[in-house]
């Protein structure tokens, strides 16, 4: 009996640690592959160089860093208010029947393959922007719109759960004072659900930074720092996906180094966001 207990414990410990080990190996691998590029190009030159011309040996990824930031910020600008508004409606104002119908529908968005989002962006959003706002249509704006929609399910369902977790007594205390539903949401429900809503935003941000396929299809992918939201843009993930197929030598190492930079940026964003959540 005791033996069995010991066995189970050992097996589960190994399984648990292997997940961490896999993460460790991935980190080790991309750093090992990417570090030579930092030493050869020079870290500062690599991060702040504005020219990405691998055939001429110019390897600066600032356009891609800027691209990832702009596209992610745009996606959050669109997706966060929309997602939070939707979650507030579902949790506070919709009848239980409406919520039971709408929430799974929104979560279904998460199940649509990203290439399909890209396809819709390509055939609807890109021409729309080209016709009504000018420019090539393939742009920061197009990418932000597509990503903004893609992060909705995460944003809606995580913040919905946070709002639902606010005890009923909190709401009733306000309502009993003669406050309206909206005043109650503003004064009590949102402040109480804030950590959960921030967690939703972090997850949504992670999704937006990491998304590759849909962005490649609508971003235009020029490796130039965009001058406006109507200019084409290339993100770090797109950069890796577009060129990894044929890259060799230093070029290939530079792509891995792009992955390292992406990894560091996402980790820092996560740590900062978590610290904000914890500080309350």
């Amino acid at each position: 009996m005791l033996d069995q207990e010991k066995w189970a414990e050992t097996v589960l410990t190994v399984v648990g640690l292997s997940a961490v080990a896999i993460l460790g190996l991935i980190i080790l691998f991309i750093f090992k592959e990417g570090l030579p590029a930092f030493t050869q190009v020079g870290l500062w030159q690599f991060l702040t160089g504005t020219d990405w011309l691998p055939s001429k040996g110019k390897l600066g990824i600032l356009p891609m860093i800027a691209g990832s930031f702009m596209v992610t910020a745009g996606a959050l600008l669109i997706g966060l208010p929309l997602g939070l508004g939707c979650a507030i409606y579902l949790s506070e104002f919709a009848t239980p029947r409406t919520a039971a119908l709408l929430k799974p529908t929104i979560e279904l968005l998460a199940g649509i393959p990203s290439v399909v989002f890209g396809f819709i962006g390509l055939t609807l959003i890109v021409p729309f922007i080209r016709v009504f706002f000018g420019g090539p249509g393939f742009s920061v704006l197009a990418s932000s719109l597509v990503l903004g929609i893609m992060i909705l399910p995460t944003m809606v369902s995580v913040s919905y759960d946070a709002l639902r977790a606010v005890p009923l007594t909190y709401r009733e205390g306000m309502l009993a004072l003669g406050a309206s539903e909206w005043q109650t949401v503003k004064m009590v429900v949102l402040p109480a659900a804030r950590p959960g809503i921030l967690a939703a935003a972090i997850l949504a941000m992670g999704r937006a930074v990491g998304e590759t396929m849909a962005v490649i299809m609508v971003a235009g992918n020029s490796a130039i720092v965009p001058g406006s939201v109507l200019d084409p843009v290339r993100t770090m993930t797109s950069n890796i996906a577009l060129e990894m197929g044929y890259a060799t030598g230093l070029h290939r190492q530079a792509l891995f180094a792009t992955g390292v930079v992406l990894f560091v940026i996402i980790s820092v964003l996560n740590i900062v966001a978590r610290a904000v959540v914890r500080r309350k």
Partner: protein
Amino acid sequence: MPKIKAINFNFFYAKTQALHSLNLEIKLNNLLTIMGPTGSGKTTFLRALNRLNDRVPAARHAGQLLLDGTDVYAPKVDVAELRRRVGMVFALPLPLPLSIYENVAYGPRKKGINSRSRLDTIVEKALIDAAIFEEVKDRLNSSAQHLSGGQQQRLALARVLAVEPEVILLDEPTSGLDPLSTFRIEETLQQLKKQYTIILVTHDPLQAARINSDVAFLYLGKLIEVGPATEMFTRPRNRRTEDYITGKFG
């Protein structure tokens, strides 16, 4: 005319009937204690009076529940206005994530009172009436969430008083408090009943006896007996009342 009058009032949650043909009167500036075990319908009665039960899906009522002779369920009744007239203190106090001052000032502000000096007067009076002013007067601007449970409950009472309601409902306001805090709340109620019509809900016969007002005993959604505490606790007319106050069930 009684301040509050229930005439054949029934309440249902979906198919469950929580109140059965309740007939009850509360006179102006009187305190009524509603006593009964869990599930007796006492909280349902309070939540019908300020219509908090509106939010419960599939909840419905039958019969009349009059406040100053007007049915609280009449179509012309403004629910937010009703809830300002009928304030409520809950079992679990909940300070807003604001300062002590702002917690109390919130209700009056919502009524459109913005003058700082008027707010100051209202807040001070409410805190004094809720018997908490002396303890918090030097830190009105610090967060209300650092107050003790008993203080939070009296702050909740002050918050209700600041809206200047006509009726105050208290739903087991001392269930989470120590004996000393309980005593202070009960003492406060004795003062407040001179100016307000108060309904106190409790499961505790001892509290009903200490409050020593009119007592209504509810059991399984039915009014079993109502009368002055002195009578009910010395000569209960109903067997179930006697069993409850002597602790045989509940």
